[in-house]
């Protein structure tokens, strides 16, 4: 949908309850704290019933439209395999493998943004601050370790 590469676009997709909106808001905050102009937009429809949740983050020097379509996103962070979304060959896909889905049931979202973080020019300290905005002390320490495990696994295996 975009004409030029004036933006970085990231799309988050998953099912209700997987923390899609938390992941996208943390990512948007990380861009925000790194002095990007950023817009984060949700398609959540009926507030909290089941089904697919999509959220998009666009960052750049000056961002206008908050919209991107899955086919044209730079990076897609996907929490389930069965969402039926189409991505182009230009989209970097951040997708958990089955073992990770089982291991990180409660914080797959934060684990996934750990992976995502290796593709973005944002310092780990900034990510920590962004994650801090969403969690209290106990939840923070659990999630921050999920984040770093995600970062490590991305380095070890590349993206799936």
């Amino acid at each position, binding site marked *: *949908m*975009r*004409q030029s590469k004036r933006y970085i676009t990231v799309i988050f997709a998953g099912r209700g309850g997987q923390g899609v909106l938390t992941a996208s*808001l943390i990512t*948007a*905050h990380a861009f*925000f704290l790194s002095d990007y*102009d*950023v*817009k*984060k*937009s*949700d*398609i*959540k*429809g*009926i*507030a*909290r*019933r*089941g*089904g*697919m*949740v999509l959220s998009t983050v666009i960052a750049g020097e000056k*961002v*206008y*439209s*908050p*919209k991107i*379509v899955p086919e044209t996103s730079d990076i897609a962070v996907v929490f389930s395999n069965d969402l039926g979304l189409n991505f182009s060959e230009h989209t970097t896909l951040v997708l958990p493998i089955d073992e990770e889905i089982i291991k990180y*049931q409660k914080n797959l979202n934060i684990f996934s943004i750990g992976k995502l973080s290796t593709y973005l020019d944002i310092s780990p300290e900034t990510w920590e601050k962004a994650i801090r905005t969403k969690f209290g002390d106990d939840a923070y320490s659990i999630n921050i370790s999920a984040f770093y495990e995600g970062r490590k696994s991305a380095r070890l295996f590349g993206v799936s």
Partner: protein
Amino acid sequence: MKALLTGNEAVAIGAYEAGVFAATGYPGTPATEIIETIARYKEVYTEWSVNEKTALEIASGFSLSGRRTLVVMKHVGLNVASDPLISLAYTGVNAGLVIVAADDPGMWSSQNEQDSRLYGRIANIPVIEPSDSEEAYIFTKRAFEISENFDLPVLLRLTRAISHTNTVVNIENKRQEYYRQYFINPAKNVLLPPFTSKRRLSLQKRIEEFRQYIPQTGLNRVEIIEDKAGIITSGITYQYVKDALPVASVLKLGIVHPLNHQEIKKFNSMVKELFVIEESEPFIEDAVRALGMRVRGKQDGIFPWAGELNQSIVREAFNGIYSTSGEICEESYSTLCAGCPYLGMFYVLSKKPLFIGGDIGCYTLSVRTFPHILDTTLCMGSGISQAAGYSIAKKERAAAVIGDSTFFHSGIQAILNAIYHKANILVIILDNHTTSMTGGQPHIGTGKGLREAKKKLLIEDVLRGCGVEYIRRVGAYDIKDIENEVNKGLSMDGVTAIIVDGECIINKKKGGMFYIDKSKCSLCGECLSLGCEAIVKTEDSCIIRNICNGCGLCIQICENEAIKKIHNCNLCR
């Protein structure tokens, strides 16, 4: 201070800093979070009102008493509030009164995609439209000043993509104090002749004065780049235009009603060809056409009317490729949850060949799993009256389902009418103790407010007061009980009522899990007819997925006794 806020949060913070005394409203996507955000400020009186009409009327009382007030609703709620709205333009306000209507082009979570800006024309009040969260914050503050300076209620129109997008906002972090003395003034506030005629003429004068003042508000702005194409736009569409047509000149309207004629004419004289690009109706376009200007837009078939626009649609339309519609929600992403307290009642109703009037709430989602139960879904409170009409004309028994919050919102009037006019219906009130579809807001039947406990109103008491004689409350998870009560309720004449009592499963502690013993499953499919999201069919048996909430409904309908409780299992959670 900079913050990354949704449009809804920005409106709430803007209103707080403008010194609002009160914020009222009724939950509705995409507007809901405005009240929830402002409720965090203890200084602000907040309430989920019983419906939007009441929300606006109580707000008018706050305004008369001298206090700034914000009223929040979704677009269809504005229809409910439209009666007081239009007459409030005649009386005017005392302290600022700002009404937020959040529209849902594309119908991501609504039954229609009406354009609330049109109410600006019906009521003759200013309509202000922000294009990101920063503007939502600033425009909200300005809206209160405009309301007071021109003695008019002001409509702040949002759309989904504004309400639910986080953008960067510069916040002042300073709350203003505001109070304006009230003086009795029947000539202004009592709409009876001869006052009405004077107020009608006064309204014309007030809105004309505002029209002349518009350039001084600074809420409209001209961006001249190239002179080949000039685009008048507003709201989120401005953002699409900037992405799609970076060299076009733009007149960006923050005030979309009324229009300042000189502003439009001046912009027209600066460009070779004039376009209006906007979502929903050709609202600005028609007003510009009425000024006698040559303009291109929806009326001559360049841009689509329906759905949400985006930068691709705008760019392609500009290059002569017409889209018949913008983005429209084509498939509901939502279904009833596994273990939803509505499933048992719908299972029972699925075996009854009845006309059943539906309503607006989670129960509407039953259509995805039970396509032939609900006959209708129209608007809040409508199902009872639709069933009543059907029963009277057909001379047969009909039924209606309605939620607890919707019952209080507008179901009560329908019941009074049905009783008095001798309709022959069973009213089923699905009481899940919350307003669940919009995310679980309290209502007057819950005993909760936004911040504090309240005295709970009982549905039974209200029904009895309306004149319903047969009222039964039944647990949501006992299918035999539900069936007996439905049969009894249907066997009688007149208006009978059943309240199905079961807390929304999202708010409830999970009650373990069930599994299906493959060796006993005959694949009869009866458990599937429950419509529970957790149960799916595989080649050799039905299975229960780990989203099971342990409600125990399926165990009651499996004739093979194949469904069993998992004991002491933590594997799947």
